[in-house]
Structures are given as structure tokens and as C-alpha cells.
């Protein structure tokens, strides 16, 4: 690294170096890699047998099978390829919120995004980044080198929260744009109706992408200090609401839990990984819990 990045300081990079990212579903990469591909090819990982066809190299016939069954079959091996990780980072106005945690949600999400991209590139995979909110998309094509990571890290540092999210729209866009099976990582506070978000995730799942949802929230959003009369102003819309905190505190907690459960169940239904992290959780721990250490 030529210089220290705000969201990927050398200390954090050192601690993330041994972390890896893996996927459950086959992915389609451009190069040879360590991840399972939907295609068969040359590797040491046995996949299955198929009948010999004209044109197949005769040296790939499994003669042991022929001896037992009097059939000519060819042994096929699982192709291994590299992984393309597409990171979708929500930069809507609500990500500016910070109350109980040490960082705004966007800052914390930027740490997560930088760490993930570093892990991907460090394991010879490719990482792409899209910063999105309602009015703007800023996309970075997949890169496989640390040098290629630099514009993305700088973009993270320059990102400013603005506008509303429209997460569903962003998910549909990435589903349409990325044709090869990839890993799509959504980092957002998901402060929208869960149904829309889940439709976007289902779209990605339908396109055979592996989906990972990192739900970033400030602790104060989960258990806000609601006491007495207060007037609340929403960050994204500026709309106001006068409430009696004591009256709503308990109901609010239940409603948040209901919302989280709806998201979690929806992600499970789409075979997407869902992880809720608050901004007090150390970044390394948040990443470590999802992916194991190499070796």
C-alpha cells in the first residue's frame, strides 16, 4: 500500500490477512481459482462420470470402470475458478446516523467494505464496488490487485450520505448487470420495507448469485432512549413526529424485532446469508464471524 487508507489502515489489513471468503454456490470466474465452478475442467476434485463420446481424449477413459462394467466412461473433474465479489454499499442519508456507536453507519460500513475487498483480493479473487443511493450510482469494475483497489478505497473516503436508499432498485440493477455467477454483498441499514429488499435478493438468487447481507445498525436504533415528550426528525425525508417516549418504548422494541425477524426469515428463504452488526462491533470480529480463517 502506498499510503494508509482511512478505511483500511495497515493494522486492520494485518489482522485481515489470514481471513478468507468462501461461497456455498458455484461461481463463474475468469481465471483459475479456489472456488467451485459450475463447469468441469482440469483439477484434482472429482466430479462425476459421463459416457465417452466421440472426440473425447482416450486417455481420460477410466479403464477401471470399463473392466468392471464393460462401459467406456470418462472421469470428470470439478473446475475451480476465482470469485468475483460485488459489494453494494448503501450511501443514503440514513447511513449518516450515529448516536450510541462510535462511528456513523456509513463509516462503519466503509470499514466492512474495505476489509471485505481486501480479503477477496488477498485470496486472489476479484472485488467490485457500487456506492448507491436513490439519485446516484458509482460503480467500480472488478479488480484483482491491490493497486486496483485503490480507487475504490478512495471512493469510500469521499462518499457522503445523501438521498434515500431504494435498495430494491439497486439490487435489481446489479442482478441485471452481472451475468456470471458471483458473490453479491449488500452492506446497508436496510431501513426500508423488508418486502422490497427481499424481492431484490430473490432476483439475485434467481440469477444464481451468492448473496450476503450485512445489516449495519447503530445500537440506538435497536434500543433508543425514548423518554418523555420528544420530537423526532427523520434523516432521509426530514419529516417530523412528536411522540411520548415512555408510551412507545416497549412497542418500538417489539416492532424492531419483528422487522429484523422478517428480514432474517426472508434471507433464509432466498438462501442468502444475513448478518446483523451494530456499529460497536469491531470490524475484524464482524468479518471473522462470517468467514473462517484460512488454514
Amino acid at each position: 500500500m502506498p499510503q494508509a487508507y482511512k478505511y483500511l489502515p495497515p493494522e486492520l489489513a494485518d489482522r485481515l490477512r489470514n481471513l478468507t471468503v468462501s461461497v456455498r454456490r458455484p461461481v463463474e470466474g475468469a481465471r483459475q481459482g479456489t472456488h467451485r465452478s459450475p463447469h468441469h475442467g482440469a483439477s484434482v476434485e472429482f466430479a462425476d462420470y459421463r459416457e465417452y463420446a466421440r472426440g473425447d481424449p482416450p486417455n481420460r477413459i477410466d479403464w477401471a470402470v470399463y473392466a468392471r462394467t464393460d462401459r467406456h466412461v470418462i472421469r470428470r473433474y470439478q473446475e475451480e475458478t476465482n470469485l468475483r465479489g460485488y459489494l453494494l454499499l448503501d450511501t443514503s442519508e440514513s447511513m449518516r446516523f450515529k448516536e450510541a456507536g462510535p462511528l456513523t453507519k456509513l463509516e462503519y460500513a466503509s470499514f466492512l467494505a474495505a476489509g471485505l475487498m481486501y480479503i477477496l483480493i488477498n485470496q486472489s479473487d476479484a472485488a467490485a464496488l457500487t456506492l448507491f443511493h436513490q439519485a446516484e450510482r458509482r460503480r467500480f469494475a472488478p479488480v484483482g490487485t491491490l493497486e486496483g483497489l485503490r480507487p475504490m478505497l478512495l471512493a469510500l473516503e469521499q462518499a457522503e450520505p445523501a438521498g434515500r436508499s431504494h435498495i430494491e432498485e439497486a439490487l435489481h440493477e446489479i442482478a441485471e448487470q452481472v451475468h456470471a455467477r458471483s458473490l453479491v454483498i449488500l452492506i446497508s441499514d436496510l431501513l426500508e420495507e423488508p418486502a422490497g429488499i427481499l424481492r431484490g435478493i430473490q432476483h439475485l438468487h434467481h440469477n444464481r448469485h451468492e448473496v450476503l447481507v450485512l445489516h449495519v445498525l447503530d445500537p440506538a436504533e435497536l434500543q433508543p432512549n425514548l423518554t418523555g415528550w420528544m420530537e423526532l426528525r427523520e434523516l432521509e425525508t426530514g419529516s417530523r413526529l412528536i411522540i411520548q417516549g415512555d408510551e412507545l418504548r416497549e412497542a418500538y422494541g417489539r416492532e424492531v424485532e419483528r422487522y429484523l425477524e422478517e428480514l432474517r426469515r426472508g434471507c433464509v428463504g432466498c438462501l442468502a446469508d444475513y448478518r446483523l452488526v451494530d456499529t460497536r462491533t469491531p470490524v475484524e470480529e464482524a468479518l471473522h464471524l462470517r468467514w473462517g480463517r484460512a488454514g
Partner: protein
Amino acid sequence: MNLTVLNPLFVSLLPLAAAPILFHLLFRLRKQPRVFSTLMFFHRLDPRLNARRRLREYLILLLRLLLLVALLLALARPSWLGRGKEGSVAMVLVLDNSGSMSGRGREGLPKLNDAVATARTLLARLRPRDSAALVLLVDDPAIPPPPGLSTDLGPLRAVLDRATETEAGGSVARALERAFRLLEASDATRFEVRIVSDLQEEKWRVTPVNLAAPRRGTSVVVHRVASAPVTEANLGVLGVAPPARPLPAGRRAPIEVSLANTTAFDCTARLSWSDDAGHQGAQELAVPRQSAKRIAVTLPPLEPGFHWLSLRIEGDGFPADNRAAAGFWCAEKKPALFLGESETFGQLPLALSPGGEGRFSGVVPAFLPAGALADRLRERSPAFLVLSWEQLLSLSDGPGLSRRRVREFVEAGGSALVVPGVNATDSARPWPEWLTVQPGRFQAPAQGLNWVVLNPGHLLFQDLRDERGDVTLKNVKVLRFAPLRPGPQDIPLAGLEDGRVILAEQRLGRGVLFVSGVALDSRWTTLPLKPGFLAFAQNMALGGASAAASATSVVAGERLPALPANGKPIRVQTLAGSPLDWKGRPADLPGLPRAGMYSITAGEEILRVAVRSSEREGHQQFLDTDELPALGKLAYSVRGAPGAAAAADEDRLLAKSWDLGLPLLLLALAAWFTEGWLANPPPLGRDRPGGPGPVASRGSIPRRERSHAAHVA
């Protein structure tokens, strides 16, 4: 308008009801909005939360306004006069005829004139079916008001015509209780108590104890009679001290009079007096501001019998505290019989009559032999009988004999003294059995012993007590004595420093027998050498007559302490002062409201009463606020005197009203409870179905208290 309020002050406070609006606006201005990431969860809870919240806020605000308005209106005691033209009124007029009402009003006339005019105006407003009664603040036996409420107002007006100022204070509480009692029996539809008074502080600042509550719906209205500013000095009679024991006939009689000037002006006035014998006198007085003074009025020699003195201050600024009277007895000269020679009794004969002719004491010493005692007692009753121990024993004790006559004399109400003769050498025996005070043997200590008064409150030591009540006979030595042993019923009067008794009193029948263990001679004791010895000896000789020496003295308006209790009707007649001739039962006699000398006759029994005016009525301070402590917790209103121009239909409308205080109070309570319920609702969504259940914990975040340093470092 058919609405009136009894406490208009609270109506003027109604703008305060807008306070919740001000607080609401201020609170909104000062409330800083809190930035929050999303309101989604609140809208998911209740999409109309904001609208409901605002509606509830306005409701709470409205209820608070209603609470304050209802509370203030309830305190204002409004009355709905919707049925003002129906029903009838029962009105009790309480007329202040106390001494303070003789002061000048705004027009320069006595305030009682204004009060009577006000009462007339109030009576004139009544309609034919209305009833009224009159209660005087000071009962006046000369003008008893008609008993009970009556629609015939003629007798009431007649009483008002004859109403004159008294010299007594009166009781507001007592007059109100009487007024309330009168209203209890009324079947009218509205009840009123109208008080007409100058609101003198002496009477109206007194907090009543257990003031009776009026009948429900009774309105109490106080009409203030204005007082003129005080510009002149006022001198009042604080008291008259008649002689404590009968004066000797033919001797000039000094009467002490106490006066006080309670104003801020120096006073120059004249005290004039007259007595029953037609003597008159006057003397000029100068009493500085805020000070008291005692003067002596000396009457010319009087004949034996009862006499009175009437006093009056003239020339000051207030008349109702200027008069007083005193009654006293003059006794003819009576002999003090000494049984034996004068030398036997030391200095006692001289003390009883220093001049020998009884000019100062009314007692003339007479010495006679023991054998002449029975005849002398039969011939004329002496004022005092003195005999020595030896002579008492030398008298025969048989029927019709001298010693028996001594006992009969005392039992019949006489006073006697048994004293050792100056030359006595030993206590004689046997002592008569009816004499319970027993003597011991004579003793003569070398240095003598101190004489000690054992019963300082006894009549014997009257005139010998200082201001603290201590007897001034001090440093008296007893050189020779015989100690006495009083019986259980006897009263020790004086003794020695070691506690032994040397002078005791034995009650015998209606009379008194003094027994002394020491001769009243300077060889036996230094008592005859003391200045108080004359008063001591004369008190002993005349003490039996002290109780009847003077008339009963009271302040005008006070209940008489002791009326004849023989069950016969009494008759009260004026001897001096305002004419009065009252007959009736003793229980019906109110206090005598004017100063003067009165005789109260019940059959053969005659009680003489000296009445002086109440000096408190001369205090010229009046309440000028609408707060009257004397009315306690009563609801009332204070108004000026209704003049002819003000005789509007106001009181007509009061004929029937509904007190709206309680409904308004209930309304305020209801608003309070509703406001409390709205402002503190139960938490929202507690019982909302479809909750996340136990799986919710899977999505929640484990709490970690880690620092930001662990975050990236």
C-alpha cells in the same frame, strides 16, 4: 344577567386559565427536535400516530383549560339567578349597635345613623311575601327586637327608630349564630344575612371558634359603614376602684379612676362626676397620647348606707367609652369592745382608732369589765370583740352567761379576737371545747424569731400587698409567744420562721374568730411598730363586712357574674345612667349595654351592679379589606352601604339562586381525571398480536461494551 358571583376576585383571575396555552407554546418552542434515522418503525406501529398524538395534545390542552376555568369559577362562587322572580326571601338583619358605632361617619353623624339608614333601605327592598328579622350585635334590653322572622316589617322599623348606640362591644359570632338559627325555621326559597357594621378591628379581627354553619344556600353580605378619619383624641375609662371595705360614714371617700388615651393625639378633657347624694364635681385632665393615667375623685362625707358614683369624660372625640359607675357602702361608727383594761391589749386599741373617735376607721374602742359583756352585747352589736385568754377563761360558760354569749355573737356573724394579755405569764387551761385552735406554752427566745405570713391571700393582708402580691409586713420579730395548734378546719394566717403558727382563724357559724399566740404589743413583737400594723388591725376588725363593701362591677355588655338565684323573676332598674326598667326571668337578661348603676331585685334580694363602658370600643381601627377574620370560613361578600341610588333590583334577583360552585368543582375534578388519563396512557402495543416470539432473539445484537480503540486499532 342572571348570574352573580360572591368572590369576584377569582373572576379577575380567569385570564390565568390561559397559562396552559402559554406553557404549551413555550414548551414547543424550546423542544429541540431529535434527529433519528427513520420513523419507519413508529409508522409501522401506528400509521396515524402523529395525528392521534396531536389530537390528544389538543384534548389535554383543552382539558387543562377547562380545569382551570372551572376551578376559578368554582372559587368565585357563582350563583344562577334564573328563578329570581319566584319564591321568597328570608332576611336577617344584623345591626351593629356597639359602642364603636357612636363614632362619626363620613357625614359627621354617628355611624349608627348610617347603619339604620342602610337597614331601612334593605327592608324597603323586600316584597310583601318576604320575611325579615333583626338581630342586634349588642343585646339591648330597652329595645328587644321582635322574635323570629315576620312579613310584618313595622315592628322592625320601630326598633330601628329607637335604636341608639350602646357602650358595649358585642360578639359577631353570637349574633351570627342567632341569625342562622332564625333562618332554620324559614320556608322561604332564599336566605340572606345582611350585616351592617363599621367593621371595627376589635370585634372583626377576632377569629371565631366553632362558628355555626348557616343553612345551605344562605348568602352572607356585609355592608360596610364608612368611618370618618380620626382627628381628635379619645380618653376612655379603664376602670373605677371603689373602696374594698365599707367607708366610715362622715368621712371623705377617695375613689380611684383609671383613664387611657389610645389615640395619637394629646388629650385635654374634663372628668365630671355626681353621686347619689347630689354632689357633683369636675376636674380638668391632660393625658398625653398613647398613655394611661390614674386620678382620685374624692367624695364629700356621706351618710351610712349604699352610695354610688357616676363618672363621665367630656370634651374628647369619642363618647362611647366615657362613662363609668361605682357603688360602695358607708358604714356608721361601731364600737370595738375590749374586755378589760386598755393596757391589757397593747397597741391594738390605738391601731383600730388612732384618734380614739373612729373618724378614720369607723371603729370606736370601748373597754368594759367582763361582767358587763352580756348586757352590752344584748344592747348593741359591736363591730369587733377583743378579749384576752385569761378573761375568756374567767367568763362563766353556763346558759345565759358571758362565754356562751361570746360564742353566740361570733356564730351570728360577728368578728372576735382572742389574744394573750400583755402581762400574761402562762397559757391558761382548760381551753373551751368549741375553740379548736389550741395554745401551747409561752416561750421567749433570746434573739426572737421572725414573723412569717402563712396565708398572703387572706383578706387580713388586703392593702398590705405590693404589685407582685407579696405582703409588705417584713422584718417583724416575735420576742415572746405561745405556739398554736389549729384544728383541721382552721386557717393558719401567720407563724414563725420555724413553721409554728401564732395567728389562726377559726370559722364559727357565720362569724370569724381570730386566735393570736402573741400579744399585739411591742414587748411581745415588733409588729405594732410597723407602718402596716394599722391596716392589719383594721382589716381584722372590719374584715367580715368586706364582701358587701361594694357593688358588682362589670363592663357594658358582659354577662352578669351572679344573679339572684331564688327562682323569682327579677327587675332591673337604673339608679344612675340610661333609664331602664326591665322585668323577666334571670336567664333572659342580656348584658347591660350602657354604663350606669343598676339595681337588680329578686324578691327580697337586691343586687347592685356598676357598669362601665367598654374601653375597647374607643379603638378607632377598622378593617378596610374584604377579608373579615370574624367570619371564619363562611362565604360572604363585603359591600358598601346601599344608598338610595343603588337600590336596584340586584337583591330581587337573589330571591332564588342555584349555587354553581359544587357543579363547577365536580366539572374541574372530571377534567382533572380525564386529563390525567389522557396524559398517562398505558404503553402502546403491549397486547398486540403477532409478535415475533422467541425467535426474535436470533436477530438481535449481543451487547458489547467495547471501545472504539478496539474497533480499528
